[in-house]
């Protein structure tokens, strides 16, 4: 899977590394700001109120 990704990327190795770093940053951003907050509401029950 990752080997295939490496092969389909264009350019010399450092261009590929650059592209991968940018991709990884984008994935991390999506996880930290969208995916994880959404998951947190579902899997992390937290009650701070008395009722």
């Amino acid at each position, binding site marked *: 899977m990752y080997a295939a990704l490496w092969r389909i990327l264009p350019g010399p190795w450092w261009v590929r590394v650059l592209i991968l770093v940018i991709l990884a940053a984008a994935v*991390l951003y999506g*996880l930290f700001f969208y995916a994880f*907050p959404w998951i947190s*509401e579902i899997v992390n029950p*937290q*009650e*701070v*109120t*008395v009722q």
Partner: protein
Amino acid sequence: MDDAATPEGAGPDAPESGAPKRRSARATKPRRRASVIGVLGELLLTAGVVMLLYVGWQLWIGDVIYGAERSAQAQEQSEQWQQQYEEQAAASPSATPGTPGTPAPADTTADPVILPEPADAEIFGIMHIPRFGPDYQVNIAGGITRPRTLDPIGIGHYPGTQMPGEMGNFALAAHRTTWGKPFNRIADLHVGDAIVIETPDGWYTYRFRTLEYVKPSAVDVLLPVPQATDVAANGRYLTMTSCSPMYSLAERIVAYSIFDSFTPRSAGAPSSLNGTA
């Protein structure tokens, strides 16, 4: 295994046609075609990394992100109120005897302005606690639901309880862990610590008195006189609830404070904000 087997001529049927073809296929494209097992393994590894990232986000990075966001939002809100006040003061100069900006020699106090109860998720105040650092400022909004108030805004006001400065009980709730954890250090408060609620009208200073640990069903901490049924309001209390122990649903931690003074916006920020008084 195959290399050891084929030269021996284990398959006498057609060794010349079978073995070289297989070997050449291996030599030209080793692991070219991703096997199902290989892809599955990579997916599982990725899932493991994502789960570790989630734990890191939940326990650390998320709080850094949200904490900074909360503080910035409250800062912005505070500046907006100050600007509104200054515009109003400029429009009607007769109404402002003191020029804003000049520090008052002593804190000017007044009878507290009582705000109407806010709508759900409506921001009406900012909490400052000098004990938690000069940057500690979190917006307070109406309602105590997680999706509308506690997660996106910070601190929530129990509907039906009193407002800042009002006789009775001004009751708030916020996260102690995760989501910027506004009440994370609630157990570090010292007796007499200032808890300052800023609103468009000014600053309400409360003084911390005591902590208590209760069951989640202990709604009587929200009564006008906390935990005292059928007693008319006899003072101005601030009650803050959060989870206890941290990361647990088992109990609630409750911090009680008592109203100290109200400083109108025209008098400038009170000295209790500096943490010295």
